[in-house]
C-alpha cells in the first residue's frame, strides 16, 4: 500500500510538472491581459503532432515553432478584439475557443486519430524501487529552468514590471509609456512557446491524441486557479497539485471516474468562490 501510494505520488509529481508548464501561460496571459487563452492546450498538441511527423531534433524545433506560429495568429486576433480601455475578456475567450476548435479539427484532418506519443528512452531509472523513464528527469529540469527564468523575468526585469503594469491598469500603463499592446502580444507568443515546450515533454512521457487539447487547457486552468490566478509561480505549484490529484484518482478509481474526479475537483475549486464576481477585477465586464 505504502509503496503504491509513493509510486502514484511520484508519478503525480512528474505529471504535475507538465501541467504546471501549461498553467504558466494561462496565468501569465491572465495577469497581463485579464483574459484567458483557451487554445493553450491545442498549441501543445500541435507541437507534439508536428514533432512526431517531422521527427528528430528538427522535429522538436518545428513543433515548438508551429505552436509559436499558432499563438502569433491567436495573439493578433486577440489584439484586434481587445484594446486598452476597451476590454471584453469574454469575447477574447470565445475567439481563442474558436481557435482551439479550429486547431483540433486541423490536427484531426492532418494527423488522424492515432495516439500522439513516443518513447525516447528504452532504459528506465529506478527511484526508491519505482521504475521511471529518464524523460521525467528532463521534464523536471526543463520545468524548473523555465519557472526560474520566468520568475526572474517577471519580478526582476523592467520588461516584467511593464508586463504586470499592463495587467493592473492598461490605460495608466500606456499613458506612462508602456507599449501595452506590444506586451500583450508578446505574452500570447510567450504562451505559445511555453505550451509548445510542454507539448514536446508530454509527447515523450504520457502522450495524447488529437482531442486532448481542451483537456490540457482545463487541467491547466484548474491548476492555475488552485492557488490563485494572479501569480504564475503559484500556478506552477497548482499544476503539481493537479498532477497529484490525477495520478491518485487514476490509481485508485475505476475507469472513466479517474478522469471525472480531477474535473470535479476543478469544479469544486471554482465553486469555492476564489473567482467570484467580487474578487476578480473583470467581474463587471
Amino acid at each position, binding site marked *: 500500500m505504502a509503496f503504491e501510494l509513493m509510486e502514484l505520488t511520484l508519478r503525480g509529481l512528474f505529471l504535475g510538472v507538465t501541467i504546471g508548464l501549461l498553467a504558466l501561460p494561462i496565468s501569465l496571459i491572465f495577469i497581463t491581459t485579464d483574459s484567458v487563452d483557451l487554445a493553450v492546450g491545442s498549441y501543445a498538441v500541435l507541437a507534439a503532432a508536428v514533432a512526431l511527423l517531422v521527427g528528430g531534433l528538427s522535429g522538436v524545433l518545428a513543433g515548438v515553432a508551429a505552436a509559436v506560429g499558432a499563438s502569433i495568429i491567436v495573439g493578433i486576433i486577440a489584439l484586434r*478584439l481587445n484594446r486598452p480601455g*476597451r476590454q471584453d475578456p469574454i469575447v477574447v475567450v*470565445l475567439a481563442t475557443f*474558436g481557435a482551439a476548435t*479550429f486547431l483540433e479539427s486541423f490536427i484531426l484532418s492532418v494527423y488522424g486519430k492515432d495516439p500522439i506519443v513516443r518513447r525516447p528512452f528504452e532504459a528506465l531509472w529506478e527511484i526508491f524501487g519505482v521504475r521511471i523513464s529518464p524523460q521525467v528527469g528532463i521534464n523536471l529540469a526543463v520545468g524548473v529552468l523555465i519557472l526560474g527564468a520566468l520568475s526572474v523575468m517577471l519580478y526582476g526585469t523592467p520588461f516584467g514590471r511593464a508586463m504586470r503594469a499592463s495587467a493592473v491598469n492598461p490605460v495608466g500603463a500606456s499613458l506612462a509609456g508602456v507599449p501595452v499592446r506590444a506586451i500583450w502580444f508578446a505574452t500570447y507568443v510567450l504562451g505559445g512557446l511555453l505550451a509548445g515546450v510542454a507539448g514536446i515533454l508530454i509527447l515523450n512521457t504520457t502522450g495524447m491524441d488529437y482531442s486532448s487539447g481542451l483537456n490540457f487547457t*482545463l487541467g491547466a486552468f484548474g491548476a492555475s486557479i488552485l492557488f490563485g490566478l494572479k501569480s504564475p509561480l503559484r500556478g506552477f505549484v497548482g499544476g503539481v497539485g493537479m498532477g497529484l490529484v490525477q495520478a491518485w484518482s487514476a490509481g485508485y478509481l475505476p475507469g472513466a*471516474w479517474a478522469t471525472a474526479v480531477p474535473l470535479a475537483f476543478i469544479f469544486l475549486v471554482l465553486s469555492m468562490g476564489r473567482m*467570484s464576481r467580487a474578487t*476578480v477585477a473583470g467581474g*463587471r465586464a
Partner: protein
Amino acid sequence: MKNPVPKTQRPTVLLIVVIVFVTPLIKHNAFWIDNSVLFAIFSLFALSVGMSYGQAGILSIATGAFAAIGGFSTAIVTTRYGLSSYLGLLLAIAAPAVLAYPTARIVTRLSPLPLSIATLVLSSIIEIAIREGGDFTGGYIGLSGIPPISIAPTPFSMHILAWACVAFVLFCYCNLMESAFGRAINTVRHDSLRALADGVDVPSVLASFFAISAAVAGLGGWLYAHNLSYLGPDSLDVSVSMQVLLMAIVGGARRPLGPVIGASLLLLIVSELPAAETQGMVFGGALVLILLVAPQGLIGGKLPSLWRRQAGPKAPKREDASKVSLVALEAGEPS
C-alpha cells in the same frame, strides 16, 4: 393603421412564414426533409444558448449535456420501461431544468470566465456519468430502438413537429423577454449591482432563467432521440455544445431569431463539406471571423456596422443624445 402583428412576435411570425414557404419546396426531397429536422433540433439547442448567453450573459458550454439528459430521459423510459414518449417529453424537459437550477445557483456567483469553465467541466462530468451508467444508460454502446413519436411517424411529420416546437419556443421566448422577468434578466446581464438595487433577486432570477434554457435544450434532446432512434454517449457531447454556441454567436445571440439563423446557416455549410474532420475548422473559423467582423452576430447590429470599425461612433452619439435631452429638460422646466 395598427400593425396586426405585435412587435414582440415578429421573429416568430417571420419564422413561420419562412417555414410555410420552404416546406412545399422540400416536401418530396427526403435528404432535405431529414436535414430540416436536424436544423430545427439544433435551432432549439442554439436558442437555449441564445437565452442563457445572449440574454442572461451566462456563457454555458453545458447545452449538449442538458440536451443529452433530455434525450436519455426519454430514451430510458421508452426503451427500458416501454412507457409513452409523451411522458418522456415531460421528463426530458423537467430533468435538465431540475439539474440546471442548483448548478446555476453555484456558478452564477462566478465571474464570466470561470463560469464558462465550470459549465464545461460539468458537462464533461455528465458525459462521463452517461458513459459509466452501465445498462441503465447503455454505457459505451448507447441506447438504440427508441420508438418514433406517435403523432410524427414519418420524416415529413417530424419536420412539421420539430419546427412547430421551434416556433413555440420562439413565441414563449419573445413573450418572456417582454415581461418584467425578461427585463430583470437583461438588467442583470448589463449590471447585476444595478439589478440588485432595483430589487431583483439576482441569483434566483438567473438560476430560473438558466433552468428554462436547459429545458429548451432538453426539448431538443427529446426530438433528437426520437428522430434518430439511437442515442450514444458521444451523440450530444461537449463538441455539440461548442457547435451550438458558435451557431448562436454567429447568428446573433442577443436577437431571438439569431440562433435559429446561425444554426441553419452553419449546418447548411457543413452539409456541403466533403469530410467530417474539417467541421471544426469551419465552426472555429466562422466564430473567429464573426467576432472580428460583426461581434453582435449576423443579425445583431444594423447592416452598416458590418463594415464599420469596431470602436464605432455609437457610444458618444448616445451620450450626446442624453445630453441634448437633459439640456432640453433643463430649458423646458422653468418656463
